[in-house]
């Protein structure tokens, strides 16, 4: 202790230096640890960078894509190209904007109800004027039976869409009426539509939640209404309104009708066609127009014999064959073998529209109508 006091300054200096040494050692150790950690971080960063520089495999098993500006631009260009293609497809589906059928936006329930009655009356009058027959006991209400035959009822919502259905039916009826060759029989059994205004909102937790779908218990048995099993509706991409026309006529009427629909320039598509023989009752209804047509006495070779119903879009004549024992008679006597027959057609037509693209933020949680 005496010596310590004698060299107090020196000893204090040594203590300070010793402290400095310890601090230095501690700092060196910490720096060593930091250096080691930073070296590992650097190595990891280099590995990651190298991995990125070698490209990135976006799809397992596919070739790596180099992460350069060119590929970024190419990817963006692909998107733009697809967007352009998608837009062109939408345009192709939407058709001529001038021919798009839109419902009246300002329509209300009462007004729509009046329009429906007026239209049904108009179509019936059109049929009567043009000799087009409707079912005698229960003529079609052209899809609006529930409102025509129930006084005081009217659509409760989706007025614009119901009005759009009205206009599309008007288009279909008129096209059908115009498709009939002069004097050719035509009986409209029914024009059916989807009762969209009766659809119910699908609750949360079920497939298609938030959108409207047919009520499991309602509208199935309503006259003039149907639920299509096959449509061109693509959820969110293409909306469709399905209509079904059931009529009895000869094939040219169908052919012309289909061609007129296809070439109308409107966004409509034939979804299904079903062909069957008309029932006896219906044939009787149209008896005046179904008189068998025998071939003229002119010679007709077997090679020119056409099919009756087989010619959907071709000439349609009754089939006749040469008389029996052709070798014994020089005159080819034509005998009516197969009479011309009426067919019952069921044509389903979709009216297509492109739904407006909603902003991403508001797209979710909003019910689809």
């Amino acid at each position, binding site marked *: 202790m005496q010596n310590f006091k004698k060299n107090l300054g020196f000893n204090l200096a040594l203590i300070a*230096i010793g402290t400095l040494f310890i601090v230095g050692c501690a700092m060196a150790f910490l720096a060593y640890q930091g250096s080691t950690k*930073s*070296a590992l971080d650097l190595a990891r960063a280099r590995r990651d960078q190298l991995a990125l520089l070698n490209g990135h495999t976006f799809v397992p098993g596919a070739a790596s894509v180099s992460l350069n500006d060119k590929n970024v631009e190419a*990817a963006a260009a692909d998107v733009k190209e697809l967007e352009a293609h998608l837009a062109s497809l939408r345009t192709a*589906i939407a058709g001529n904007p001038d021919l798009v059928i839109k419902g009246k936006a300002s329509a209300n329930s009462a007004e729509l109800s009046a329009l429906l009655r007026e239209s049904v009356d108009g179509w019936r009058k059109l049929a009567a004027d043009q000799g087009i027959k409707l079912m005698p006991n229960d003529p079609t209400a052209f899809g609006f039976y529930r409102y025509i035959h129930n006084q005081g009822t009217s659509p409760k919502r989706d007025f614009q869409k119901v009005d759009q259905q009205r206009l599309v039916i008007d288009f279909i009826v008129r096209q059908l009426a115009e498709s009939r060759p002069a004097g050719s029989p035509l009986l409209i059994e029914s024009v059916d539509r989807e009762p969209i205004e009766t659809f119910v909102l699908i609750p949360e937790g079920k497939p298609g939640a938030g959108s409207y779908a047919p009520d499991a218990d309602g509208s199935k048995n309503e006259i003039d209404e149907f639920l299509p099993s*096959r449509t061109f509706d693509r959820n969110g*991409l293409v909306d469709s309104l399905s209509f079904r026309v059931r009529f009895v006529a000869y094939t040219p009427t169908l052919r012309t009708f289909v061609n007129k629909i296809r070439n109308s320039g409107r966004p409509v*598509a034939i979804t299904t066609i079903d062909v069957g023989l008309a029932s006896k009752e219906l044939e009787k209804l149209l008896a005046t127009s179904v008189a068998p047509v025998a071939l003229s006495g002119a010679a007709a070779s077997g090679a020119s014999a056409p099919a009756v119903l087989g010619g959907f*879009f071709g000439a349609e004549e009754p089939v006749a064959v040469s008389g029996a024992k052709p070798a014994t008679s020089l005159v080819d006597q034509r005998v009516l073998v197969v009479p011309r027959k009426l067919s019952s057609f069921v044509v389903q037509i*979709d009216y297509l529209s492109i739904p407006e693209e909603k902003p991403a933020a508001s797209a979710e949680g909003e019910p689809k109508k």
Partner: protein
Amino acid sequence: MSQKKATIVNLAASNVSVSQFSVEAGSLVLEQFFVEEIAPGLTGDDEWLNAAIAALASLVNTHELKGRVAVIAPAFLLLQKPLKVPQVERARQAQIVAFEAQNAIPYPLNEVIWDSQLMASDGVEAEVLLFALRTEIATKIANMVTSTGLRPMSIQAAPLLDSQAFRLAGGSGAEEVLIINVGARSTTLSFVGPSGVNIQSATNIGGNLLTQGVSDNTGQPFAVSEAIKVGYFSGIVQLTESDPQVAILQANSQTFIRRLAQDINRRLINVRRGANGRQPARILITGRGSQVPGLSEQLCETLRLPVEVFDPSSVITLGAGTNAEQLARAKYQITEVIGEAARLTLPQPIGVNLIPRDIASQQAFDARKPRLVVAALLAAIAPFCVWLAFASAEGWNQAQAGIIQARQTELSVRRNAIEESRTKAAELAAKTKEIEQVVLNRSNWPAFLGDLQSRVGTLKNTWIEEMHVKYETLPAAPAVDGQPAPSPVVVTKVMLSVRFLFAEVPFDVKQYKSQSEKAAIGRLLEVVRKSPYVSAVPENEIIVTEQTIKAADNKTEIRMTPKATLTLVIHKDKAL
């Protein structure tokens, strides 16, 4: 290369001087010389020591002196004993000296600091001069000098230094010389010759003896008598012949000279009678006491030897801090200082060190302290070098990582951009595919009907009677692990009822020819299977009904129009 330097503190009886010497071209250079007088008449050791240290402190403060010094202790503080020891090897001789010292020194050895110096040797015996200083005094000197800010490294015995100054001044080794240094309280005789050096001190004869005599005779205080003595003999103070003080001064001077001469003569005779029979050829006198008028003449007459003033200052060079006048004034009191400074240049200097061992070791330790501190500091700094290296490496690593990170961010941004574009493109492609299907399939029905018509139309007497569409959902393939279950496949089937007319069958023959039927169905299948819409027509689903119909007259039965019902499986990509 460091220059040799020495700072010497001379604690003389009447003054204290501090001298700084250096060596230049092998010769001593007096860089600085400061002297401070001490009040005369201080007879007590402590009293004198305090006055001396006060004077030293004054010099140190005035001239801002510092550093290591060699302290010259005056003869009157020292115990001086000559010893004769056998001439043996040095280590053994040291042991003998240590043994003899116990007998020679009249104090316990632990109460004194002692040291010895070999002065002469005839090959058989060696003359060793033993110096001792009371530990208490030595410690006091060392501590008090230390308290002034100087660091005493040695305490040298003043009697040894005259002979060394003589050696420095070029004294011939072959010549026997007696150097007499008359101080204030003692007189030192140094016999220097070929056989070595013999030093004797007369501690009770000095300038103060003369002053004391004057004081006693005049009744004046010692200090006043000293002033009168110095003033009168130096010629500064002029006294008339009739002044009684003159007579007193002269009488006391004669007494002093006679007594000093007798003492020197007695010692000289002893030396002559000694083993070596030394006979000085001349006398060199120095010390301020030697300035008493008539001393040289008296010595010359009494001892029959020539007497000269010893002035070793002639061999030293004056530095910038000194001048010749200053040196001339101090030539009687600088002999011992030069003798100590001669240590810087002489090959085998003589001397002792009477500083206490603990103080010496402390001083030595103090001298090493800076180096120790520097060494410790360097050792303490070493980890900082390591720290600096690692910190620098860490900084570099972080900087590099930062650069890489920035680059990586850039790449990640691109990757995300591509990823985003790909995701968007996939979504768009899915949408496009869906819409494309609508665009492509919307015309399928008219096209299919047209195709069917054109194909069936090529066949004779064949027509379609009914057509129904059926959609069959096939069970979906099982889901692969981790993948969503594939959607079920819907197969479109069109069931055609085709009727044939066998025109070649005689109308009136009610028979049926199966060959014609097979041929007609075969032709039908052939054309239908070529349709791009038809992928298959299962044979097992072909049903032929032999049907009899009636002709238009409703009587004739026609059996030549069988109906075949077949199923057309429609291509998946041409779905109706």
